[in-house]
């Protein structure tokens, strides 16, 4: 039990901090949110990604041969810890570098790797994940978007939904149905798709939170060369699982205000003397620590070259509900005034109000609470699978 860096880790951390200090502003003590709504957000994000790549800090664990640093998982963790203390606009790259490009690296050809990896790494090209559809979310293998072979091409028709970042993406990985006459998991195929193709139409979704960050994506006779297939025809589910596995590594971090922020607000507001509030604050601290320290346990395993245990699967079940609960309490503490979401008038620049509206999405994105609990129950605890009545039926017979 020891929280100190090893000598190598300390050296790497010092290097990372020096680089960050040279290139970025520290997050201000207040709300400290990467402000996606600013017009120049994407430009700033791309510039930062380029700087980071030049400094050798983009994708630290990737091999040097493909532009990574060839570093250790623990170095990546150290980098993430330090970068999160700065005002670093990184979110446009999370899905691409965290999920899509690793899938391309795992299943793509050498040409794919040469063509796509360097540009993604320096932030010139952004990627999105085109899996979910209106009738296939949790049950994503039930998707309908069709790909039909035509000569050396595949022709894609259909609709995706909730595609994060599609509006500014250059490429995407799209999961399609290529064989409807076999059970649903067996007739899927994954492709790389050029988001600038004239047959691809992106329509931003007006979210419950008010923003328009996610999209519907329509495919009308989009031709994809067979060479841009990832994995064999019918093996799309296997490919998708690799993407989703990377998702669980990519998702995480602090999604919004936590115990410290609400404690800060309670002090200003004079509610620290309320016993009921104090009891809740204790619970929030315990949950936040539980989440953070559980990650430390996994990282310890990683740093010893072991496979982390299943404990990491508790992450989003805790954080999403935790965020919703904290924001709800902060708004209720403000009484009638709590309904104000104007950043100039609301306490803490309306961070609690905004996160309250974002929290429901977090409980759904990347696997709903219910699906995550199923996964814990089935894969970690070894309980029987849910009944899956469609498992052995051909998709076309459903």
């Amino acid at each position, binding site marked *: *039990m*020891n*929280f*100190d*860096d090893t000598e190598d*880790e300390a050296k790497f951390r010092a290097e990372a901090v020096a680089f960050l200090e040279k290139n970025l502003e520290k997050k201000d003590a207040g709300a400290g949110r990467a402000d996606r709504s600013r017009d120049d957000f994407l430009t700033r994000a791309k510039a930062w990604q380029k700087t980071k790549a030049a400094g050798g800090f983009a994708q630290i664990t990737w091999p040097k041969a493909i532009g990574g640093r060839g570093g250790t998982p*623990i170095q990546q963790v150290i980098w993430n810890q330090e970068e999160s203390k700065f005002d670093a606009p990184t979110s446009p790259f999370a899905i691409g570098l965290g999920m899509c490009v690793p899938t391309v690296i795992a299943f793509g050809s050498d040409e794919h790797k040469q063509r796509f990896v360097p540009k993604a790494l320096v932030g010139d090209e952004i990627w999105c994940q085109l899996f979910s559809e209106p009738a296939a979310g949790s049950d994503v293998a039930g998707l309908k978007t069709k790909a039909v072979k035509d000569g050396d091409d595949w022709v894609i028709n259909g609709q995706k939904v909730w595609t994060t970042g599609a509006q500014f993406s250059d490429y995407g990985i799209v999961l399609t149905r290529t064989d409807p006459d076999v059970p649903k998991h067996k007739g899927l195929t994954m492709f790389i798709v050029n988001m600038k193709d004239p047959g691809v139409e992106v329509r931003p979704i007006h979210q419950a939170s008010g923003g328009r960050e996610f999209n519907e994506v329509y495919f009308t006779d989009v031709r994809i060369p067979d060479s841009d297939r990832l994995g064999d025809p019918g093996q799309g589910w296997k490919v998708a699982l690799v993407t989703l596995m990377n998702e669980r590594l990519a998702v995480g971090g602090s999604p919004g205000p936590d*115990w*410290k922020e609400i*404690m800060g607000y309670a002090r200003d507001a004079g509610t*620290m003397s309320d*016993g009921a509030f*104090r*009891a809740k*604050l*204790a*619970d929030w*601290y*315990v*949950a936040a*620590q*539980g*989440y953070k*320290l*559980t990650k*430390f*346990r996994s*990282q*310890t*395993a990683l*740093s010893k070259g072991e496979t982390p245990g299943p*404990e990491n699967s*508790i992450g989003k*079940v*805790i954080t999403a509900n935790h965020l919703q609960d904290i924001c709800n309490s902060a708004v209720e503490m403000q009484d009638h005034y709590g309904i104000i979401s104007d950043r100039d008038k609301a306490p803490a620049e309306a961070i609690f109000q905004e996160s309250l509206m974002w929290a429901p999405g977090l409980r759904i994105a990347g696997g709903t609470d*219910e699906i*995550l*609990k*199923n996964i*814990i*129950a*089935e894969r*970690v*605890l*070894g*309980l*029987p*699978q*849910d*009944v899956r009545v469609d498992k052995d039926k051909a998709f076309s017979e459903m």
Partner: protein
Amino acid sequence: MDFDFSDDQKFLRDEARKFLEAQCTSAVVRNVLDNDDVSHAEDLWKQVKEMGWLGAAIPEEHGGLGLGMLEMCVIAEELGRVLAPIPFSSSAFYFAEAIKQFGTDAQKSAYLPKIASGEFVGCLATSEGPGDSDAAKLKTGFSSGKVSGTKLPVTDGDIATHALVLAKDGSGASMAIVALDADGVTRTPIQTLEPTRSHAEIVFDGAAAELLGNEVGNGMTQLDSILNRAAILVAFEQVGGASRCLEMAIEYANERQAFGRPIGGYQAIKHKLADMYVKNEVARSNAYYGAWALSTDAAELPEAAAAARVAASEAFWFASKENIQTHGGMGFTWEVDCHLYYRRAKLLSVQAGAPGVWKEKLVTALERKNAA
């Protein structure tokens, strides 16, 4: 960073588990449960003494094994898993740690070797009535080397040879050490929710007592510190019990059939068990942090201890009650062990400060820390 136990500590855990699974079976626990005249598992207690576990964290110069607090955490978890019906925690977590921290050199030499060997068994006597022990409410008094007053419940009070008694001392409070075979000490076993751990009412009537350490009126500060350290060890005991509840629930859910399939295939059960798992992991991680703070005497000890205690009390309570629920009617029978964990969960959550008390301590610590 190395946020895990070492290989040696894991080896100790495996050995302890093997030993306890063989020697502290359900039948051993039930022998204490079902017999009013059996206060603890004597054979098990004898073997535990012989292995030196009581002195795991006592320095060799005072007759202990001189291992450390992390090893004690490992042992605590294992004792918690099997509901060991022995006065281990009273003697090792509370009494010995108090002497180690606040005892004079003479007290250390007098008590630690005998606690380590098991010749002396210590206990902590603070409670006098409903509610948290605070100086203002204390009725038991300590003056001119004598203690008078009534303490209840005292965990292991009828088994122990010595008690650490919180008593009013002039305008403040002190901690006093009392030999329980002295004149003026009357002990009566009392009925509690948790009969596998013995409890007594102790009446002191001018019993000879010696001050812990050499500073009068320091009792509340000492107690606070004693409880912080013990809290982390108790949290490991709780995590052990909670883990065992989850295992029992999984086993039963896989085996028990209803409506043509195992009940573990139904989401109401699956999600309940997933919730248990999440709470248990939160508790385990907080307990590990406590272990780190304890073993390094970190400045973070107060908040780490309180967080460990709050998380572990919640996890064990939840796991023990939902384990009964998962077992259905069988879970409500005396024969099935579920209720033993439910009883132990309740004892450990109220002993030496209920969750509300620890939550308040936690927030106070956070305020202190974030004021600077």
